[in-house]
C-alpha cells in the first residue's frame, strides 16, 4: 500500500496544502471560479492586484490572442483596497480558501499605505507585491526594472508588515539581469519572489494598421512565455537556492508545472490557462501528483529545484 504523496509547500512561514495557486489578475477574487473548482482544495487564491483607490483601467480593446498566448492590457481595474477588504477577503476566507493578496501602487508610498491596511486584516497567508505590472501609463512605474526602486518599495512594505506575513515580490522578466533584481528585493526584506509577470508585447491590427490594444502595449502570457519563465526561475534559484519562488508563466498542464518546479519553484500559479479552461488548476494538480509519483518522489518538496542537483 502506498502512502499518499505529500503535496504541501511553504512560502516563507506560510504553509499551503497544495503548491497550485491562481495567478494574480487571472482569477479576479475567486468568486467566478468557485463554480468550477473547489477553492479550498488548491494552495491559495492569489487575488487580482489591488490599488488604494478604485480604478477603471485601460480602454478596450484590452485583449488580443497570439500564437499559444495572449496579450492583455487591463490597467489594474479594480474596486480599491477598502472595498476589496470589506467584500472579497471575508468571502474567500469563508470558503475555507487561503488568500494571497496582490497589491500594486503608483508610488512607493502607496504600497506602504496598502500594507498598513492589510496588516489590520487577519487570515491573509501572504502578500504579493506587484512591482512589475506592464500595463501602467508610464513604464517608469515598473519598479521591478530597477534594483533601487524595487528595493525601496519592498523596504517600505516590510517596515509596515514586520515579520508576520511573508512578502513575495513579483518581478518582470523584461530586465537585463533578473538575478540582480531578485537579490535587491531580498536584501530589502522580501521572503520570496513571484516569477514571472507578463512580457511586454504589441499586436498591430491589419485592418486599422494601428496598434490593436487600447493601451497600445500589453502583457504577453500563456504557453508562449513558458520557456522564459523556466529560465528566470532557474537563474534565480541557482543564485539564491534558499529563496522561495512562486513560479508562473504559461503553465497549462501538470508537465508544465513540473518543469517550473524542477527549475526551482516552490509554488505554481495558473493564470491564462484558467481563461481557456476554468477547471485547469484542478486538472493540473491531479496530473502533477501522477507525474511526481511516476518519478519516484514521495513529496512535492523533493522535486523543487531538482534540475540543479548533480
Amino acid at each position, binding site marked *: 500500500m502506498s502512502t499518499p504523496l505529500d503535496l504541501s509547500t511553504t512560502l516563507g512561514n506560510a504553509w499551503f496544502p497544495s503548491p497550485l495557486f491562481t495567478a494574480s489578475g487571472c482569477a479576479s477574487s475567486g468568486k*467566478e*471560479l468557485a463554480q468550477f473548482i473547489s477553492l479550498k482544495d488548491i494552495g491559495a487564491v492569489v487575488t487580482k492586484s489591488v490599488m488604494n483607490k478604485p480604478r477603471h483601467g485601460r*480602454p478596450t480593446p484590452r485583449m488580443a*490572442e497570439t500564437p499559444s498566448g495572449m496579450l*492583455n492590457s487591463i490597467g489594474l481595474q479594480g474596486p480599491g483596497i477598502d472595498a476589496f477588504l470589506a467584500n472579497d477577503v471575508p468571502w474567500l476566507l469563508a470558503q475555507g480558501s487561503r488568500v494571497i493578496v496582490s497589491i500594486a501602487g503608483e508610488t512607493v508610498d502607496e504600497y506602504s499605505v496598502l500594507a498598513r491596511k492589510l496588516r489590520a486584516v487577519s487570515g491573509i497567508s501572504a502578500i504579493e507585491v506587484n512591482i512589475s505590472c506592464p500595463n501602467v501609463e508610464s513604464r517608469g512605474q515598473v519598479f521591478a526594472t530597477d534594483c533601487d526602486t524595487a528595493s525601496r518599495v519592498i523596504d517600505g512594505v516590510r517596515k509596515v508588515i514586520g515579520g508576520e506575513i511573508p512578502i513575495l515580490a513579483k518581478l518582470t522578466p523584461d530586465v537585463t539581469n533578473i538575478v540582480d533584481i531578485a537579490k535587491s528585493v531580498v536584501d530589502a526584506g522580501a521572503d520570496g519572489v513571484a516569477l514571472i509577470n507578463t512580457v511586454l508585447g504589441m499586436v498591430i491590427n491589419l485592418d486599422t494598421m494601428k496598434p490593436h490594444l487600447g493601451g497600445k502595449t500589453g502583457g504577453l502570457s500563456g504557453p508562449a512565455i513558458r520557456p522564459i519563465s523556466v529560465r528566470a526561475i532557474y537563474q534565480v534559484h541557482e543564485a539564491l537556492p534558499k529563496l522561495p519562488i512562486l513560479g508562473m508563466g504559461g503553465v497549462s498542464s501538470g508537465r508544465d508545472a513540473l518543469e517550473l518546479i524542477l527549475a526551482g519553484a516552490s509554488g505554481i500559479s495558473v493564470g491564462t490557462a484558467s481563461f481557456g479552461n476554468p477547471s485547469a488548476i484542478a486538472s493540473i494538480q491531479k496530473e502533477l501528483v501522477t507525474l511526481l509519483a511516476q518519478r519516484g518522489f514521495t513529496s512535492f518538496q523533493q522535486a523543487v529545484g531538482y534540475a540543479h542537483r548533480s
Partner: protein
Amino acid sequence: MSTINKAATQVDATIIANKRIGAYHQIILSVGEAVRHCRPGNFIAIQVGGDSSRMVLRRAFAISRTSETAQFGGTVELIVAPHGSGSRWLCAQSEGVEVNVVTPLGKAFGIPVEPANALLIGGGYGSAPLFGLADVLKSRGCKVDMILGASNGSKIYAPMEGKRSVNSLKIFTEDGSMGESGRVTSQLSQIVAERDIEIIYSCGPMAMLKAITEIADQLGVMHQASVEESMACGIGICMTCVLPVKDEDGAISMLRSCIDGPVMDGSKVCWDLVGKSTESF
C-alpha cells in the same frame, strides 16, 4: 457559494449537426442536462483547435435555440460565422466530434411579467438568439414583431421554423439584395409607434445597438441590448470584455459583458465612451 456563473457547467459536448446556411453554419451540440438552465441571451464558451491548439482562449457564441429529445438529450443550436481562426475551426468539424464547452453563461434577456408588445431587432447572425427569445415571449402572451438587417441577403439569418412565434418580420439589407434597402433603424420610429411597442430586444454589432438606443431613448421605450465584445474567458476573470455603463446615480463603471451582460439595459451603456480613455469617467 458564489452567485456568479452559478448555472454553468463544463462538459464535453458532441456535435450532432453542422450545416451551412447562407454565410453561416448552424451547429447543434449535445450538452445534456445543462440545457435546462439555458435561457435566451445566454451564451456558450467552446474550446477550439483540438489538443495541440495554439489557440489558448475559448470562443463565445450566443445560444440560438435549445431542445430536449429522447435521441440526443439536451441540445443547443448555435449560428456561427466562420470569420476568425476559432470559428473557422469549429465550422470545419464534422458531426460526432466532441468539444469542451462551458454553458450557460451570461445574463439572459429579461422577460416582461405582463404580456407586452415586443420588437426584436437582429443584425447579421445577431438574429440567432432572438428566435428562441420570440418563442418564450409568445408563450408568455407577448406580441412579437421582428426586424432583421445585414449588409446583404446572404448574411440574413431567418429560418422558416424560427418565424412561427413572430407576428411580423421586416428585413433590411444595405445593398437591397433582400427585403427593403436600408438599415434596421430606417423605419424604427414608425414601427414602434404603429405597433405600440413597449420593449425592444436587440442583438448585433455595437454601432447598431448604439443607433437603436438613441431612438429607443427618444421614444421612451425600454431596450435590452445583447452586446458583442471580445472575451478571453467568458466567466468574469479576465476583465477584457468591459463596457462603460452608468448606474442609477450616473456613475460610470467598466462592467464585464460576460457576467454583467451580454444583455444590458441599452440606455445605461455609454456607447460613445466605448474604447475611450477612462480618465474622464
